[in-house]
């Protein structure tokens, strides 16, 4: 019984903290779904977990599906950055594929817009 009380109280304590283990997009710059007045020079993605550089990718395309990124993403810890070509006003799609260091893959996409809001 004493053991049971100990377990329950430890789990209650545990509920005070929740952490991440798979790599999900935490935030991005430009912000997900945002409209930015001037063209950004890069897209920066921050994930909830550290990434494996060898197997994590990001691609930025314009409304016609043409790639507008510089080709190779830089991965450091839990962030992934990719340089952009000069972007004319319009809508752009960011598609990412992340491999977290615990070997799980996640992927997602979002768009942002360059131009007047």
């Amino acid at each position, binding site marked *: 019984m004493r053991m049971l009380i100990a377990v329950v109280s430890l789990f209650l304590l545990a509920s005070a903290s929740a952490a*991440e283990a798979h790599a999900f997009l935490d935030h991005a710059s430009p912000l997900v779904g945002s409209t930015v007045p001037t063209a950004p020079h890069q897209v920066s993605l921050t994930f909830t977990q550290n990434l494996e550089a060898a197997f994590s990718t990001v691609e930025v395309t314009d409304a016609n599906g043409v790639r507008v990124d510089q080709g190779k993403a830089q991965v450091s810890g839990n962030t992934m950055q990719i340089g952009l070509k000069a972007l004319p006003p319009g809508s752009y799609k960011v598609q990412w594929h992340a491999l977290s260091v615990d070997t799980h893959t996640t992927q997602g996409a979002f768009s942002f817009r360059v131009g007047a809001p």
Partner: protein
Amino acid sequence: MDWHDTMIYVRAVHFAACMLTAGVVFFTVFIVPPVWADSDFVKGLPAFRARLLAAAWISLAVSVISGALWLLFTAQSMSGEPLPDVLSQGVIWTVLTRTEFGNAWLLRLVAGGLLAATFAGLFPAQRRPARAIASVAVVLAAVFVGGLAWAGHAIGASGLEGTIHPAADVLHLIAAAAWIGTLPFLVPLFAATEHGAMPMALVRAATLRFSALGIVSVGTLFATGVVNSWYLVGSIAALTETFYGKLLLVKVALFFGMVAIAAVNRLRFTPRLMGNGIAAFRQLRRNAVIETLGGAIVVGVVAVLGTLPPASHAHHHAAYGAVPKGAAFVHIHTEEGMADVTIKPGHTGEAHATIRLWNGDFESLDARKVTVTLTPPTPGGKAATRIAVQDADGAWQVNRLDLTEPGNWTVTVDAALGPDSHLVLDAPIVIDPEQ
């Protein structure tokens, strides 16, 4: 049988084989010495020793083969390439040299190889193993089994968690090997005693050593298990409401069941080894078999747990982990709340939209009513507003959307949260031309 099922079997076999590989080393070094000590007088010793050596080789061989399969499947999953390409295009090498998982596998392979080199000295024919060889073997076995932490959910966080969680997991794995990995080897030891091939006093001394190691292991498993649950489950609700949490409860229940049997062994049967020994040995052997079966089920549960997203972010997984192929997806993020909008297929024609709502802390957001408006890219195009229907999972669904043209549509989600409270979110979403 699909990839996911195959992976569960491979993981289960690998975990079990690694537990036994490390277990036979721990057993030989920590449990058996009283029996070794009097080896000249023990007639059952050569046969028992031969059994341990055979078990060590078989466990290690199965570990290496199942570990290679695990590496192969993981490389395939990481690269998204078909198996033949994984083998021919150097993906395995990239995984081994450029990922943490691969580095851990390389280290474990080296540790396993060196461990194999100690076997001749660890199970000598006529004497107890030299202290140096025994110490080296214990360290290598601990690296071999503890390195498995790098194949699990304990890895990848930053800061304090990035240190504490892997350390707890390594200790958890070593303690598990010291308990459920050594248990199966007690069975033939007890059986030999019942048949008169082992002196009762020596086996009793070995049993007391196992008991001491068991108490340390169980304490370590409990403490490190709480740390792991802290990071991976996060809340009581996640423990009872997610499949991950429920499976973890099954594991915890099995653990306490096994601890209860161990307590009976320790408090009831072990003291009786002094008196009417044979009956007590028989009881202990039976309980060791039951505990071993419990341990095998725990290993199976662990094999499944590792393939599931931990409960602490099952909700995140719904948001990003499972964007269907060919779907258009946008995550709309504001201080007040967030929406994930998936339109499938993400090209012109008839499509279906799924909307998930979250609050600022990424917890599911309850809405009374949700309407979705899709505005076409062409200025002056007619926007269509539809009422979404909530499904059993809490997601909001809209059927038969007519996407008339490709380009940058605008999706507007209007969620009625209360009588006077609305959350309105909008964002562009890219619809491709039909292929």
